[in-house]
């Protein structure tokens, strides 16, 4: 039975370009207090454009209605549990939005004098030190704009250190359970990728690692807890194997929400890692960004961190650009400062104990869902799990229903689906991460929905395969979208029906 939702009217809405009519406006500019300038004379006639063809012409009311109507077509954390595994869709505190918009912070220009930027620099420094305490690492850069950008920064640091030791080496080892960004990153940093097969527990196979680590291996990139939500218990041993051969241990911190206050990567042999401020530290995902991907390192890698670095001299913060061994910049300016503000607000709100409690609750919630769903879904890896749990569609697939279908049916029950078909080591994966911010009531609603769907698979698999049934948009034809890409609106295009 569907308990969480029932249908309500949603508004139709066409594209802005279709709503436009000539001469309509929704803006106001102040009166010009200087003489107007003839643009053709100032810029040269050939440098001045004609009107921007088909650009929107709408009123202010039309703008607000347009975007409000569109917004109602989205699912969001603010509407309920959002159990995407490895994405850590936790509540985004609203006070963080307020403080990031304070005038002195939001309007700070990156090139304004350091004497007028001490507040911004203090915020960055305070986040740096909090993250170092949380990770147990020695030094950190906040410059990378997102997780994958942090990965690239981290691997470039590895490369710089090995180069200084005389040989950058050729290969990065990556477990078959890894996020796709890991191999893509290694390739961009100029490394060949070698896949490390997981063992029967779904974790790093030490014997295989020992066999593969040679003089050509620069680093192992490992996610811990890994993508099936299991802590790599032999991580310190893995670090020893790597270090003995002169290789480094990179940790993808995507799943750090399982560790804060409980275990620190710096204490279990990690040399370099990134954090995702938009996962562990609650900054909003915003429909796909912005993120923040700080990279924390051990002492040996510190000289190579991107410029500039924050430095305290004579009771003032300054930026230090004179770092000859730095890998250089990975981004203009100092990173996603607005995201940094929000992450620090989250840490200040929680404090040390609160952060640890969040970890405990996140792991508790995942274990609770595991217990409730285990009788209904196949659990291919049975090691104790941390903040997420990964089932497979093994039982349902026998009746012709795949993980993607179950996910779509979940939408009818008022939930966003879990992560579908990832990690690759689980055939037909259902990857579920509830996070700490969900109440038992919401978890129960979700579990009931999953159980109900498992029963529907047995009684009416065809219905599940055609889900969702109750959404304003039914299953979308992604194949045609890719085969005949239409990536922009054009007036010549035959008018498609606007859901009417």
């Amino acid at each position, binding site marked *: 039975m569907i308990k969480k939702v029932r249908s309500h009217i949603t508004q139709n809405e066409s594209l*802005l*370009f279709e709503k436009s009519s000539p001469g309509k406006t*929704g*803006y106001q500019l102040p009166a010009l207090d200087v003489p107007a300038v003839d643009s053709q004379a100032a*810029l040269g006639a050939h440098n001045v454009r004609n009107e*921007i063809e088909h*650009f929107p*012409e709408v009123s202010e009311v039309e703008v607000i209605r347009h*975007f409000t109507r569109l*917004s109602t077509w*989205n*699912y969001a*954390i603010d*509407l309920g549990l959002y159990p995407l595994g490895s994405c850590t869709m936790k509540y985004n505190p609203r006070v963080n939005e307020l403080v990031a918009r304070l005038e*002195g*912070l*939001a309007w700070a*220009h990156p090139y*304004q004098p350091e004497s007028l930027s*001490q*507040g911004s620099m203090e915020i960055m420094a305070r986040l740096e030190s909090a993250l170092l305490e949380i990770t*147990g690492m020695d030094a950190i850069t906040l410059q990378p*704009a997102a997780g*994958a*950008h942090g*990965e*690239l920064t981290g691997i470039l640091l590895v490369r710089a250190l090995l180069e200084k030791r005389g040989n950058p080496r050729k290969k990065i080892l990556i477990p078959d359970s890894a996020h796709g960004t890991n191999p*893509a990153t*290694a390739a*961009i940093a*100029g490394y060949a990728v070698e896949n490390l097969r997981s063992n029967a527990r779904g974790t790093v196979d030490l014997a295989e690692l020992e066999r593969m680590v040679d003089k050509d291996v620069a680093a192992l990139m490992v996610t811990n807890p890994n993508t099936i939500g299991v802590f790599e218990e032999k991580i310190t041993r893995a670090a020893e194997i790597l270090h003995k051969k002169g290789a480094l241990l990179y940790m993808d911190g995507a799943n750090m929400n399982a560790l804060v206050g*409980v*275990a620190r990567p710096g204490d*279990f042999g990690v040399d370099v890692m990134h954090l995702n401020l938009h996962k562990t530290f609650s900054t909003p995902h*915003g429909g*796909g960004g912005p993120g923040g991907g700080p990279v924390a390192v051990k002492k040996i890698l510190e000289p190579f961190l991107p410029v500039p670095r924050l430095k305290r001299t004579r009771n003032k913060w300054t930026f230090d650009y004179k770092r000859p061994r730095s890998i250089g910049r*990975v*981004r203009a*300016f100092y*990173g*996603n*400062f*607005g995201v940094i503000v929000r992450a620090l607000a989250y*840490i*200040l*709100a929680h404090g040390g*104990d609160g952060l640890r409690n969040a970890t*405990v609750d996140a792991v508790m919630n995942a274990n609770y869902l595991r*217990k409730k769903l285990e009788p209904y879904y196949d659990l291919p890896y049975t090691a104790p799990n941390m903040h997420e749990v990964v089932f497979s569609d093994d039982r349902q697939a026998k009746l012709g229903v795949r993980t993607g279908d179950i996910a779509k049916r979940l*939408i009818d029950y008022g939930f*966003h689906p879990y992560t579908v078909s990832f990690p690759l080591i689980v055939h037909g994966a259902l990857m579920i991460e509830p996070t700490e911010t969900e109440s038992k009531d919401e978890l129960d609603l979700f579990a009931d929905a999953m159980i109900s769907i498992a029963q529907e698979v047995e009684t009416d698999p065809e219905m599940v395969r055609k889900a969702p049934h109750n*959404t304003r*948009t039914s*299953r979308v034809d*992604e194949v*045609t*979208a890719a085969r005949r*890409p239409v*990536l922009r*609106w054009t007036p010549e295009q035959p008018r498609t029906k606007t859901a009417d």
Partner: protein
Amino acid sequence: MLDACGLESAEALFRHLPGEVRIKRPLALDPGISEYDIVDYFRARAAENATGYASFLGAGVYAHYRPVMVDTVVLRGEFLTSYTPYQAEISQGTLTTIFEFQTMICQLTGMDVANASMYDGSTAVPEAAMMAVRVTGRDRVLVARTVHPEYREVLRTYALHQGMPVDDFEYQSDSGSLDLEDLDRKLDDHTAAVIVQTPNFFGVVENIRSVAEIAHRRGALLIVIFTEAVALGLLAPPADADIVAGELQSFAISPSYGGPYAGVIATKEKFIRQMPGRLVGETRDSRGNRAFCLTLATREQHIRREKATSNICTNQALIALMATVFMSVYGKQGLRELAEQNLAKAHYLSGKLKPRFTGPFFNEFAAVTNGRSPNDINQALLKKKIVGGLPLAGWYPELENSVLLCATEMTRRERMDEVAQAFSPVREQEQVQV
């Protein structure tokens, strides 16, 4: 919940972790604080920054008015707290806005397709360069010295380990625009791309057509960078480029001490499959209604892993949405009028100063300081609660007494007069005051 899990305490959840990885003490962080205390803390930090100053800084980050509509829209939880729109059936809001974003970027730039955004302008540059390398099968890139210096630094960081040599070419010391002869000399058959910026770092508007001709003659692609998106409201679109990569901060994205911003890459249709980043495409749902979804994902890391066109995973959806709302509010007429105001303000200011270059400019320009040190002038301005322009000598030693100044629709005439006064030689200052 403990009972349901068969646990005697929550601590038991971590019993399987080896002792040596566990932290045996509480984190050394202050206890948690209330919402009021958080606001108070950040208000105090904000007060330590510049507040109430008029600023003449541009150089890649521009102070433009943010219509109230922008935050009204992006603070809606449905946009703010949703994930990447993989599940199209319940993400049509985000998908539709991205499709509109892609369309408007194409309309502005004269390109056929635009992606759903990149981290920022600076990282869009190496992504565009790597794209040109894939398209041409060549390895070298030539970048104008008038491209934002920090963008060039980012390009070098990325290029270093990919066997992608990066070389600079010069600008003309009188006009401040590209030295096309130097470009022609340095172009060779290994050059995958020529990278230029317009308006360039000095604010000078470049002639894109002539640089395109030179690049294309040698089989190289032309990548055009922009940092001041408002200029697109007035300037001819860089339609002769093969790839346009830019920064949209000017479109209602607050300066925010350097980020988050939104970059974008736009290109010709024939290069779509070499493009990095997310793309939204139009399709139908099973009932035949128009619908949108992420598409051409076979270029991306979650499918292609090490063979992907980029390792990029996130775009900057929420920031791109700010730009989309901004473009919708200003629209066809407003964006032009906004750009004309910027042009007028900067030309008013330049009329009172001595411009360093003769090339046409939009809303920023280099001014010569009449023998006084840029630092002295800026110190004097700070006393009047004005943040002056950016001294150029740090990146361009040959421009020792030049300052890069920007004026936008938010710059008041009186403040420009004060700047002009600070620039004038000491003995003239009294006359100016009269």
